[in-house]
């Protein structure tokens, strides 16, 4: 079992994740991620899709894995990694469905996802989680090891295998189509203070 329910209600997960594991993760859950995640952001995604188009394999076996959208700062001497918080997830939207088709089960980033990805999460039983955007120093403390495994020439955008321990994230989009941002923001909107045109619909 790759999902562990903790006494305080949080959940600890460790890849590889199965469909059954993913179904236990619901929008709004606070999750601690442990084990291996693969760091990849814009340029790495573009290259990975080019590899797939050329019939080549990805730099890692995607089945059940978690992709973390991060480009860390260089590590200071004596440290495993530099600052390592999440980057904006929606920039990866164009590439994401392809990776989900290949079995990626989780993604960690910040910010919202578009409708295509949210549909793909339902179709492929996968989950999108957000880490603390701009909390790069705190995130670094949860990373135990890093190894560049592909595209070293991309520098901060190289694909890395990261070993993390209890990296805190919250589930934003689950495999049933829920969106935590929408749920979380709605009660705090002060409709009476907003101009007419802003009073209907979600903030995003």
């Amino acid at each position, binding site marked *: 079992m790759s999902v562990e329910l903790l006494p305080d209600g949080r959940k600890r997960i460790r890849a590889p994740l199965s469909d059954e594991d993913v179904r236990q993760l619901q929008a709004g859950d606070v999750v601690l991620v442990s084990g291996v995640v693969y760091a990849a952001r814009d340029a790495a995604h573009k290259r990975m899709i080019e590899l797939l188009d050329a019939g080549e394999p990805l730099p890692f076996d995607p089945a059940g894995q978690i992709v973390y959208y991060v480009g860390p700062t260089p590590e200071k001497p004596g440290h495993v990694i530099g600052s390592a918080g999440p980057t904006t997830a929606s920039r990866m939207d164009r590439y994401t469905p392809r990776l989900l088709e290949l079995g990626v089960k989780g993604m960690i980033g910040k910010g919202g996802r578009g409708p295509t990805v949210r549909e793909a999460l339902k179709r492929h039983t996968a989950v999108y989680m957000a880490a603390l955007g701009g909390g790069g*120093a705190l995130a670094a*403390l949860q990373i135990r090891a890093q190894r560049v495994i592909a595209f070293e020439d991309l520098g901060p955008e190289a694909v890395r295998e990261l070993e993390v321990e209890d990296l805190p994230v919250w589930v934003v989009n689950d495999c049933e189509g829920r969106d935590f941002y929408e749920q979380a923001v709605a009660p705090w909107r002060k409709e009476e203070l907003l101009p007419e045109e802003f009073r209907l619909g979600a903030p995003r």
Partner: protein
Amino acid sequence: MGQVREVDAAEITRAVRELCMEINYKVPEDMAAAIRRAREKEESPIGRQILDLLIRNQELAAQGEYPYCQDTGYTVVFIDVGQDVHIVGADLTDAINEGVRSGYRDAYLRASIVADPVFERRNTGDNTPAFIHTRIVPGDQIRIQVDAKGGGSENKGRHAMLKPSDGLEGVKSFVLRTVAEAGPDACPPGIIGVGIGGNFEYAAILAKRALMRKVGQPHPDPRVAELEAELFEKCNALGIGPQSLGGTQTVLAVHVETMATHIASLPVAVNIECHAHRTGTRVI
């Protein structure tokens, strides 16, 4: 008329280098205070938790081992050169870029700049070039302000050429829409820089310069200050909150700058700064 004062370009390099190295680890006091104020005012429990985490992140970064954010930014440099200054020893642009290069290398900051936008997008490896705004001003001093500007929040900025008939209401609506659409992507709570007037490019520069003001300091023109206060209240009424997990503290401040414009035009630009507001100033 003052005498011409010679300034060695190496002094400019050193100032830029030191600023890059400092600001990425130590949030300016006015920003730290703004985050603390938001923590006191935030009504949502999860919002307060997030703001506590941001304060811890600040404290950890200030120890000097890990930058505040892994996105150590575009290096934006505002340099005001006194017209009685003669810069000697190197080209000004090279001097600034050398400061960025060595500062980013020696402080273990991320190289986040690609050499071209749409062809190879090859990382330059040292975060150069800097994005430099130069003004010639009276006097014999050089004032340098460096801002490490995160890409995620920069991406959420918007620019519009409104019609004069859209008026103040049109401006307010555009600002609010920009903040609403940015949502979680711009790492709230941050600062909203608004430039109104000028022409196409001046509106954007005004918005960027607005971010450089001390956080929450009102504009000296009471009409503009009133607009800032109204936009501040309305942005926070969106309920986005810290990290867009719901709350009353979506923005820490709204800063507006205005300028003369054309009889046909009402340019507006909105530049968003995330909670990782990293800036500092040196005077030579």
